[in-house]
């Protein structure tokens, strides 16, 4: 992140100097491969790569390829249908499904249709996208914030689990009035995650133990700790259960649904957006945020300038851990209501790709979280209808991020000109000895 001169800013400067027409500016910014162009092209390219992968490995298509010479048209058509079909299902599962709209208009009365949930069905895919995006945004922030301060948080998973344990325990272990209970559980989730993050920061500041190793190890420690807690009824296992699952949290601790009982979108999504806003404010409008970024850019200069590098590391990791803990809390309180081994999923690793796609900035993280949330929301329908394994999502995520991280590659593929005023350098390396 060595050059912060954004191409948008560059275009604005150019406008002042030469006053070209607005059409010219738009054309130039596209051809010069600015951040938006590169990101869009990277996503497009990743989908092409995923489609090719799908077309060349699907078993029906492979049979058709076998008859390539006798019936080449059929082979190519099958390949196309498979690749595009999977994406159509993914789209219908995550954004918009036309069948739901036609079903809505076939109802006799509009108000009855709303009451019967036909209107909700139209918005169901979008709601699922937001539900999936909520923990991705929060965990993505938990990676992006330390990244701005020069730390690598590979341990969002451990912090998510920490938050989940606290939120779940407070959810079923205590009984509190309506609003208070939700708030207490969410704060508990923050504290649980923050503790894990603080541990990492404190160890780095005091002993020099590298945060990458400590966070990786803590991921495993927390997975087994959760397994341990869920193995005994006197710890967290649900009473009279032989499975490793906790008791369900109280109804008072559920995050309120935003648009009625048919849609799962809940207040957790608002929490995620609020956190993104708060982190943006922290990073760009406060002294603390300035310290974070200074230490991220050049720790020795920051030290010379009188900043307490060690204390800042601890603070950054504490906040980051808290954000990841919130991600865990929103999953438990918003959709799952109990904690088990499926609860933490792959959020910890996905968070890293989200943060990277978002270029470490809060707004970017929100957009990246929504994109990957959409992929996650659409994947089950894709697998159910077309048989394309959901692992396709991981492939797409990784390929998107690889392309986004290397703008010169995208520019070379699409023959874009290099950005005139420095442009985006992608994600620049800074080594890990700092």
């Amino acid at each position, binding site marked *: 992140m060595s050059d912060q001169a954004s191409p948008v800013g560059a275009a604005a400067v150019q406008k002042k100097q030469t006053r070209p027409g607005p059409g010219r500016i738009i054309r130039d910014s596209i051809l010069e491969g600015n951040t938006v162009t590169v990101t869009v092209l990277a996503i497009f390219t990743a989908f092409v790569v995923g489609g090719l992968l799908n077309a060349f490995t699907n078993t029906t298509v492979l049979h058709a390829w076998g008859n390539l010479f006798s019936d080449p048209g059929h082979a190519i058509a099958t390949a196309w249908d498979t690749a595009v079909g999977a994406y159509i299902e993914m789209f219908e599962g995550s954004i918009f499904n036309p069948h739901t709209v036609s079903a809505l208009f076939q109802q006799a009365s509009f108000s009855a249709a709303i009451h019967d949930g036909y209107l909700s069905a139209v918005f169901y895919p979008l709601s699922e996208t937001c539900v999936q995006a909520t923990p991705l945004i929060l965990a993505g922030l938990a990676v992006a914030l330390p990244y701005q301060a020069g730390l690598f948080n590979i341990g969002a998973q451990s912090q998510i689990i920490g938050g989940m344990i606290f939120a779940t325990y407070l959810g079923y272990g205590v009984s509190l009035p309506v609003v208070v209970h939700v708030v207490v559980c969410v704060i508990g989730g923050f504290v649980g995650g923050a503790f894990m993050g603080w541990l990492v920061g404190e160890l780095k500041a005091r002993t020099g133990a590298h945060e990458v190793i400590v966070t990786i190890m803590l991921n*495993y420690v927390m997975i087994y700790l959760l397994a341990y807690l869920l193995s005994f009824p006197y710890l967290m296992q649900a009473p009279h259960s032989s499975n490793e699952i906790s008791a369900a949290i109280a109804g008072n601790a559920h995050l309120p649904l935003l648009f009625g009982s048919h849609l799962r979108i809940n207040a957790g999504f608002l929490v995620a957006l609020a956190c993104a806003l708060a982190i943006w404010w922290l990073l760009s409008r406060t002294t603390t945020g300035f310290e974070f970024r200074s230490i991220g850019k050049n720790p020795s200069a920051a030290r010379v300038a009188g900043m307490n590098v060690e204390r800042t590391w601890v603070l950054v990791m504490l906040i980051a851990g808290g954000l990841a803990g919130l991600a865990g809390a929103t999953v438990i309180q918003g959709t799952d209501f109990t904690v088990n081994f499926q609860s933490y999923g792959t959020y910890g*690793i996905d968070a890293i790709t989200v943060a990277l796609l978002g270029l470490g900035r809060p707004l970017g993280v929100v957009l990246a979280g929504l994109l990957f949330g959409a992929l996650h929301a659409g994947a089950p329908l894709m697998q159910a209808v077309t048989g394309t394994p959901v692992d*396709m999502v991981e492939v797409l995520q*990784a390929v998107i991020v690889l392309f986004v991280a*290397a703008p010169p590659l995208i520019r070379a593929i699409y023959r874009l000109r290099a950005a005139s005023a420095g442009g985006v350098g992608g994600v620049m390396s*800074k080594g890990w000895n700092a």
Partner: protein
Amino acid sequence: MTIAGNVLTDQALVNEAPVSTFRRWLAPATFVAFGLIDIFVLGGYSHKGDATFAFSQPFAKVTVPNLQLAAAATCYVCGGISIALALARAFAPLSKLMRRVTIGLVLFLLVLALLCWADAGQTTAFNIVNLLQGTLGQSIPIMLGALTGVICSRSGVINVAIEGQLLLGAFTAAIVATVTGSLWLGLVCGALAGSLVGVLLAVFAIGYRVDQVVLGVVLNTLVLGLTGYLFDGLMVPYQNTLNSPATFSAIKIPLLGDIPIIGPIFFDATIFLYLTYLALAGVQVGLFSTRWGLRTRAIGEHPIAADTVGINVIAMRYRNVIAAGLIAGVGGAYFTIGSVGAFGADMTSGEGYIALAAMIFGRYTPIGAISAALLFGFTTQLQSIMSTLNTPIQSNLLLALPYAITIIVLAGLVGKVRGPRAEGIPYIKS
């Protein structure tokens, strides 16, 4: 040139962070803590009776008599020695080598006390040979992965993608060995698969200068998704034709394999263990006694200086990263054609990250990395044996032990490990 130069001096300044008295007392304090655990936890709670240790496998040509130790007493002695070592560490001026020896001793005493506690009052003897043999087996992919990491780091490239290299190696070896029916071809292709991930790492890290830690994680996600996708889509429907490879059988080396204790541990294993010996020797000698090694260390420490004397930094980094991938690929192949046969989704389960930790632990030296990898393998194997011994510790806590010990050892005893100066910083030729 100036950019890279500035970064280097910055690193130098950062590395001289204040050394607190906290740091000085940390190692002795950790020693004392381990000693107290020996005495009060393990000694205090051990069953009455002796712990019996066996040193030979059934049907061995030469047998070694069993060793009987009074469990509680041994724990007390172990704890006493640990605390004595803590005093020595705190007050006596010890050389660097002696300081490392004390770390090794304290860990050994902790393990001995743990074993006494676990086996006290049991009717079956605790077989040390099985433990150590299993340790080497468990450690093979970690050792090979860590050696890959050492070469990459020494060349100035952080390799977090070891996990991906192992996983793709395992996948490729399984599929090639099944389709062609040749284990050797499977091994070679597994190695090449590791190298393929190395190519991606090199192109993006060296060519496009992408942040290497993040890049490694992304490559791991890519390989995880790709192998998971192909496993669900192709391997599960066509299990018999795509995913049922044979496995290498153990080769016992004549004479050496019959030596009591040492023989079955070191000289009666699959080809993978012998390849690991070769890789260790090769990397150790290569790095520290050949022209290639000198140049590799030069481009990792001070690429500008290396460039000045005519070494092509970029090309050499490409070559080293891609070639090092071969070693991790072999380590990956061990998962399938070296031990269990069929491939399973995410079957490396994070061992590549452990290998990364082992490399840093081992202070970026081949021998150190191998020792750390063996420590991991040992704790994993210890856990699997202890879970059969009816110890009162819950198995999930035992499973967490290797990782928790890593954190404690890293924070309490090792502290800040200084890597090659230019590690992770792309070289920009001016």
